């Protein structure tokens, strides 16, 4: 027998803790993404489109000098004194409605005791967005022939929330899936998990990609708010402020939920070519809220359901907040539902990830991955 003993951990190094290992992994995820040209280019394009859209919307709204409106004497106090409106004074509500029907004015502003804001906007079939943007408070609206009544602002907000969620979740979900499979396919994963706990690796990946996705989202939100403020649309910026803040909070947990599931789904296959076979259902989950919010943004029942289903809540709840449909406690309740789902997804995801990570070759069956 040799008398040599294997020296235990010398003083020179100390084993990094779970948090430190997680952060090292997250740091690598972020670093490698930030150095990827395709990521930087696609983000630059997204940034440019968002900036252009916000500026266009802002200037288009600000450009509306001369929108003809009829105003009754008792509603004068609600009409902003700027060049955006070409005001025709009318005697009473009946006269105002007549002008609207004749098409002389695009809308009429009349005092209305039953409206919370004290006045109502009357229009033929659509309220000019420039008018709504110009008013300090969103008034109640009365449409004379409401058969098709697209509220442009609501529609724009629906597309905005829907598309940002769709793109960010899809892009970073795919990133996390590719990164998991890359480690399996190149077999570097064995080296990694011989050094750090599997859960630290998973947590690092989820955190790294969440930081990137949130960073991107916050930059886009800043563009929206700053852009609208710069172009003078402060009221709209204020109206959007709270929904955007809620969107960011919901997005954070919604993304962690999706990221855990993406990592788990990707761990079940061994080659990049097979990623689709396990991540397609997740892609559907991401796309569903986008299409639902575009088709049903003005259907309160669908939107109400969407705002509580964890996968669509990040789009549905901010939308309802923007439309003013949600009670103050609703986003909190929805957030609790989302958080609970998130925890469940992390637990299940970590299990699948741990059980599948070293199984190379054929796709791991879900039941086996969960059972171990």
């Amino acid at each position: 027998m040799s008398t040599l003993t294997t020296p235990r951990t010398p003083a020179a190094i100390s084993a990094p803790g779970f948090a430190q290992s997680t952060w090292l992994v997250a740091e690598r995820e972020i670093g490698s993404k930030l150095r990827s040209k395709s990521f930087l280019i696609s983000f630059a394009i997204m940034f440019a489109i968002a900036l252009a859209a916000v500026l266009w919307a802002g200037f288009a709204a600000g450009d509306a000098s001369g929108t003809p409106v009829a105003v009754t004497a008792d509603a004068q106090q609600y009409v902003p004194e700027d060049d955006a409106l070409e005001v025709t004074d009318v005697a009473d509500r009946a006269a105002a409605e007549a002008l609207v029907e004749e098409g002389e004015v695009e809308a009429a502003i009349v005092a209305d005791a039953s409206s919370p804001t004290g006045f109502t906007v009357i229009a033929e079939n659509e309220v000019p967005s420039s008018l709504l943007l110009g008013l300090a408070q969103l008034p109640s609206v009365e449409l004379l022939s409401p058969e098709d009544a697209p509220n442009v602002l609501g529609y724009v907000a629906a597309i905005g929330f829907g598309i940002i969620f769709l793109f960010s979740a899809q892009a970073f979900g795919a990133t996390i899936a590719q990164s998991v499979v890359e480690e399996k396919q190149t077999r570097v994963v064995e080296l990694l998990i011989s050094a750090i706990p599997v859960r630290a690796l998973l947590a690092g990946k989820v955190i790294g990609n969440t930081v990137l996705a949130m960073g991107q989202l916050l930059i886009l939100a800043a563009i929206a708010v700053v852009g609208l403020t710069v172009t003078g649309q402060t009221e709209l910026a204020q109206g959007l402020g709270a929904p955007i803040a809620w969107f960011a909070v919901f997005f954070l947990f919604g993304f962690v939920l999706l990221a855990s599931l993406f990592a788990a789904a990707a761990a079940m296959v061994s080659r990049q070519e097979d990623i689709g076979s396990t991540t397609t259902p997740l892609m559907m989950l991401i796309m569903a809220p986008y299409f639902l919010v575009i088709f049903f943004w003005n259907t309160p029942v669908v939107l109400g359901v969407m705002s509580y289903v964890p996968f669509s809540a990040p789009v549905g709840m901010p939308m309802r907040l923007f439309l003013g449909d949600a009670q103050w406690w609703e986003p909190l309740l929805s957030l609790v539902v989302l958080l609970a789902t998130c925890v469940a997804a992390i637990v299940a995801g970590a299990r699948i990830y741990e059980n599948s990570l070293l199984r190379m070759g054929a796709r791991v069956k879900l039941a086996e991955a969960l059972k171990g």
Partner: protein
Amino acid sequence: MLQLQGITKTYGGRRVLDDVSFDVRAGRLTGFVGGNGAGKTTTMRIVLGVLAKDAGAVTLDGAPVTAADRRRFGYMPEERGLYPKMKVLEHIVYLARLHGFSKADATARATALLEDLGLGERLQNNIETLSLGNQQRAQIAAALVHEPQVLILDEPFSGLDPLAVDVVAGVLQQRAAQGTAVLFSSHQLDVVERLCDDLVIIAGGTIRAAGARDALRAEHSTRRFELISAGDAGWLRDEAGVHVLEFDGGYAVFDADTDETAQRVLRRAVAQGDVASFAPQHPTLAQIFKEVIQ
């Protein structure tokens, strides 16, 4: 010293490891041989904590191996792989940091090691741009950068040309000489035979033989001798207690029943004519392997 005691592992009802016990001693090279599917990789993964064991214990100097101990294990998986798009130095630094080194310390160690391995010019190249041989060197750096006290290498010689085999063998011997416990598996029995101090043979998930290489050889050696003489050795066939295996003029290979018989044969051979060589034949590792796995 790393010890495995009674390791058992079952996969979906199939027992892939059954009561696996052996030692990997510090300062020595332990060869781990077995056929495909014998359980080598599974055993190594269990030692590294990459796989969970069903039963048994892995201890280091008598105490159960902890996660902190494993940070001081170096590993080369059978399936090689590093991140293709990471730079060589950056990658090795990353792995060193995962093992607990500070950034500055990791960078200094990685740079020195890569330079030793002849990759000094390639530090800033992406892994994917390296030749296969250089990727293998980077892989060795990945296993060694944190100065492991226990080295576990799964098929470190597979896919290497003879010169690269010598380079890797040299690195392993050097580490062992510094007191590292080294366990390596290989299908190349001649390399294992030449290199290892201790030997573990596994088949069907059970350990068939384990111990010092020379002791194993002695244990499995029969009284087989090779005789090269000037005269005709035909008389051997009539010697009592001798079984001739090969015969060609003055050349013969034979088994003797006792040591006395062998000595008697030698005396007679000398009496018959000049003897160029009379030597006991030790079984090769390949022979021992075939014998014990049956």
